[in-house]
Structure formats: C-alpha cells, structure tokens
C-alpha cells in the first residue's frame, strides 16, 4: 500500500488529523532541504503528516510572493529538477518515513515526459504528485500515467468549482483532494473564509478520499479551524517565511522544526 494512503487510513482509524507542511526544494540551499524535511518529520511525529515538496519553477502562477521568491532563489543557486528530487531521497536516507508528495508545475513534468517524471519521483522515495496547474479537462491521462508508476495524484478543488466538477475531480484523486481555502495565490491570510466548513462537508458527501485544505493557512489557530473539519491542513508560505534565506542547513532545520511544532499544537 502506498505510504500516503496508509498514513491517511491510520489517522482516520485513530481519529487524528494531519498537518502537511510545504517545503521548497533547494531553499535556502540544496544541502538544507533534507535536514529541514527531517526536522519537520520529527516535529510531526510518526504518521503525523505529509511533507509537500515544492519543485522550483520559473513561472509559478498559482504562487504568491513568498513561495515565488523561494523558487527564484533556489533556481539561482543551481537547483535542478533532479537535484530537487534528490533532496527527498536524502531525507529518506536520514530516516524520514512519513509520506512526501511533490508539488510541481506541469511545464516541468511535460518537458521530462509524465511517465519518466513519475518514475524519477518514485525512485526518489516520493509518494504522490500535486498538480497545481492541471484542471479536470487535462487530468485523466496524466493521473493514469502517475498511477502506473505507483504514485498517487492530488488535484485541486477551488471555491469557484461547481458541484459537478468537484465530484469529477475527486473521482480522479487517489491521494487526497486539495481544497483551496481561497480563490487566489498562495500566501498568508489574516482570516480564512467562513465557507471552508460547509465546502469540506460537501466534498465529504461525494468522496471517500481524504480532504486537505491549503492556501492562506499560517497559524496554529487556523490549523485548528481547518482540521476541525478537514483531514489535513497544508501550510506553505508561513513556514517558508520562518526560514531565513541566509540560514545554514542546521539553522534552517531548527527554524522549520520549531514552527511546525507550534502548528502541531493546533491539529485536532
């Protein structure tokens, strides 16, 4: 069984929710990423969450300024796709056993070829792929190819997605459904919309697949609010912001671990 499915199944059985911290591969440096992942895994505890590993892209249209800047810096410092995937492998070498999913633009996947890219992910110890810029219309063949490599696919549902699309998207997701708390780009929001609860409930009514919520979540309070209804909360920009661009690998790992510990307190 795929690590991702296992983790969600165990959490469901135990009545726990998950925290899904987002890490940019190669930020603040390639050397620091495996240590950051390791520190986060420690802070989450066994089965406590899923790491989302952002593969840097030159033109991430779904990302706000914080993640954009982390991608730009990682690329400027020489992060390639292979090196980004290798950070997951190194993290596995450090004993990280929680699921890792890659968040990656289809521009990068297509260039390599979906089958080859999925295989490279599997070889690096990655369990699933989040497709932030693939809508329902383009998804079916891509999802099949990713599944053939033994990986799971995570597609996004937006607050603007009508009910029939939500159902069709959920049917294609075999990892989890990524529900966007807001219409817009990634980045911290002071307040989350009040319709997250009803929207997640509506998703649950149409799918057995776990539902995680992301975009705009930045505090333990917001994690509490989200995990009260969803299976997991995804935190990206707020975590990246805690990691100073000049940190050594050890400092970066410490900064990331400490913030994730803070967020874990909010998990229901």
């Amino acid at each position, binding site marked *: 069984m795929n690590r991702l499915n296992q983790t969600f199944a165990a959490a469901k059985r135990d009545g726990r929710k998950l925290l899904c911290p987002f890490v940019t591969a190669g930020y603040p440096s390639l050397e620091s990423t495996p240590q950051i992942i390791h520190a986060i895994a420690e802070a989450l505890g066994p089965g406590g969450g899923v790491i989302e590993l952002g593969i840097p*892209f*030159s*033109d*991430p*249209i*779904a*990302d*706000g300024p914080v993640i*954009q800047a982390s991608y*730009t810096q990682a*690329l400027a410092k020489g992060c*390639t*796709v292979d090196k980004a995937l290798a950070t997951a492998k190194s993290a596995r070498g450090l004993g990280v056993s929680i699921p890792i999913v890659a968040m990656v*633009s*289809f*521009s*990068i*996947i*297509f*260039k*390599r*070829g*979906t*089958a*080859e890219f999925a295989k490279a992910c599997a070889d690096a110890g990655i369990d699933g792929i989040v497709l*932030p*810029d*693939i*809508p*329902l*219309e*383009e*998804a*079916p*063949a*891509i999802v*099949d*190819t990713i599944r053939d490599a033994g990986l799971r696919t995570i*597609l*996004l*549902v*937006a*607050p*603007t*997605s*009508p009910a029939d*699309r939500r159902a*069709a*998207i959920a049917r294609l997701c075999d990892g989890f459904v990524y529900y*966007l708390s*807001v*219409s*817009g*780009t990634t980045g911290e929001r002071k307040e989350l919309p009040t319709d997250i609860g009803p929207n997640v409930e509506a998703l649950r009514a149409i799918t057995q697949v776990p539902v995680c919520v992301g975009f705009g979540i930045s505090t333990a309070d917001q994690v509490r609010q989200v995990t009260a209804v969803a299976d997991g909360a995804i935190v990206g920009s707020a975590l990246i912001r805690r990691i100073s661009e000049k940190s050594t690998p050890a400092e970066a790992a410490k900064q990331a671990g400490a913030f994730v510990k803070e967020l874990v307190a909010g998990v229901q």
Partner: protein
Amino acid sequence: MTTSIEHGAARLSSEQVATQKLNPRAVKAVPDVHGHFGQYGGMYVPETLMGAVRQLADEYERAKKDPAFKEQLNYYLRQFVGRPTPLYFAQRLTELGGGAKIYLKREDLAHTGAHKINNTIGQTLLTLRMGKKRVIAETGAGQHGVATATAAAAFGLTCDVYMGSEDIRRQNLNVFRMRLMGTRVISVESGSKTLKDATNEAMRDWMGSVAHTHYIIGSVVGPHPFPQIVRDFQSIIGIETRQQCLDTFERLPDAIVACVGGGSNAAGIFYPFVEDSGVKLFGVEAGGRGLNPGDHAASIGFGKPGVLHGSLSYVLQTPDGQTADVHSVSAGLDYPGVGPEHAYWKDAGRVAYSSITDKQALEAFQILAQREGIIPALESAHAIAFALQQARTMSKDQILVINLSGRGDKDCVEVARLLETAKS
C-alpha cells in the same frame, strides 16, 4: 470526462510531439472543444481559473450566434477603430525590393496605432455581456495595454495593466497614454521584467479576482478559449485583406508576411487564407542579437513543445522545463512562447517561419520611414525586413502583402538611443 484522453499530452514527451504530422485538410477546423490544435493548445491552468475560462468560452459561443453582438462589434470596428484599414501599394519599397509588388495592410492606421484594438474591443464587449466591471491585461510594447485602456475608457470599465519594469522604461510614451485614459499601470519587477513576467502577474491577479474581473489576453496565447477568441477577433485583418485583393486584383495575393511574437497579428491575417494553398504564408520571429540561447525570442525556430501560460506550444525552455531568457529589440516580440495554432501550422507545413535580427529590423524601420513616409512599429519592422528579402525572389507580377501591425511612434526614443549607441 474522457474526451481529452486521446488528445492528452501526458504520455508524450516534447520530442515525440514535435515529430507528429498533421492532416493538412483539417488545418482550419481547429480548435476542438477543449482548445486543442492537434496536440497543441489545451487548458493548463489552475482549477481556480477554470470557472472564468469556461464562462468566457460559453459566453463567446453565445455571442457568436447572436446577430446583435456581431452588429455591435462591427459598429465599433467601423466607427471607433476606423476599419477597414487600407491595403496600400508601397511603390518605393517595391522598387527597392525589385521583385513582387509589395502592399501594406495598414493596421498602423487603426485607432491607437496597432491591430491590438480589434481584440480589446471584442473582449470588452464580451466582458460587458458577462456583467464584469473590471478588466486587466498584460503588455509588452504597451500596444495591447493602450488598446485595453482605450476600450476600458470607452465603455467605463476599471482597468489595471501589468507591465515589466524593463518595458516601462522602453515604452514610456505608451505608459503615459494608458495613465491618461485612467488605467493603473502596475510595474512588474519579477523575473526578466518583461512580457512573460507581466503575464504571470496578470494571471495571479485573475486567480484572486475572477468573480468580477475579465483578463483580456492580448495575443493568441493562454488557455483555451483565448487563442481561438483572439484569432477570431483579429481575423478581420485577413478577411478585409482577402476582399481588398479580390476587389483590386481580382485574385488572391501570392504571399503574406507578418511578425510573430505571441502571434496575434499573424494569426489574424493568416487564418482567412489557411485553406488557400496558393497563398504562401510567412511568419517572422525575433532573431535578436544572434542564435545563442538568451539572445533571441524565436520560439518556433529554436524552441521545443512545452507548456507555458496555460497552453502547449513551442516554448523556449531549459532542458528542465524552466522558461528560458529571451531577447528582442522589440518589446512586443520579447516573449518565450508562441500561440498554439502557430505551432500547429508549423507542424502542418502551412506557414513558413523564420527570423530577423535586431539589426535587420532597425534597418527596415528606417527604410520604411525614408521610402514610404511610414514609421513602423519595431515588431512590424521584422516583417518588412523579411518581406524585402522575399520579394526579391518573386516576379514583378506577383503580389506580397505585409501586415503592418502597428505604428512606430512608441519606438522612436528607443531607436534614437540604439542608433546613437551604435554610432559611438
């Protein structure tokens, strides 16, 4: 949702796509319902935008069938834009070429000084039909920004235009024109600070504003239905050219030349001729400073199939799929991608694409000014330079049409600077 599987690009690498050949007879009957031109096109955008993209596609289908929309569009094209634009015989340019008779399709005479207005009027009318109150746009040379600002002012919409800071420097006059018409020009400092980055920022804006904002994409790029909508609104150029040729020469032209950045003016003049195999079509890309990566913006000439800004087409990318740096003296051609229909025409062998360097374009810019009393946009100067070469290979009874896509007032300060630098 299985319809996209047979078109799905998932199992193909960029190399494989490039080698697939197309059926020439089907060249005009594109795109399909999901926006595929052969393997190209599609809708590679975040789910957040899909509601707006589908709403636009639906509204456009309704508008196309509505005689009142057609009448309204034609009214504004005639009375506001000043169409039809002339097909002008360039006698002294023809003499210089010494071959085919050269005619200029005078899009530079359209209101605001370029073909871009054909599309912004059309999309603004669609915006009104959708009940949206705000429009946004990206701009490189500033011509699309000005055309959007103009339409927004004429119809009372709020307008924000994203423009790379490097282009703001190069195209200061257009920045002033936009601001004068009440548009907010937002400077983009990310990446290469040019058209690609302005497009990213406009898409990010749209991610958060889809409910009340329409994004007027200025070229035949982006997710479906944009490549089709922009092509259709720009096709007025080719439709008029065709009629003018039939009225004047009682036959079609032998060759048509247009510059290609994203490719809207070229798509507009080519599309109505695509099934006329006797009419040779030439697309001219920006050859920049030379052939090395980063020195040009010739996506079809040097690029490979890839995904950028919502569609699959020829793209200049690194081996990893990161968007490559590009360069052109002309801000409007300074873009690492090209519309998916051009990729389709290239593979079908219907359009021949080549490139012209910065230096050749600057020469053509001056040649047209001196021999015809017309200052062309630097973008259009690429087409002129190529057309002069092409005309020489043709006989004197043949007819070559250049799409003179815009006027060059906006470029005068930058050209003066470049000529001064070249002297010293």
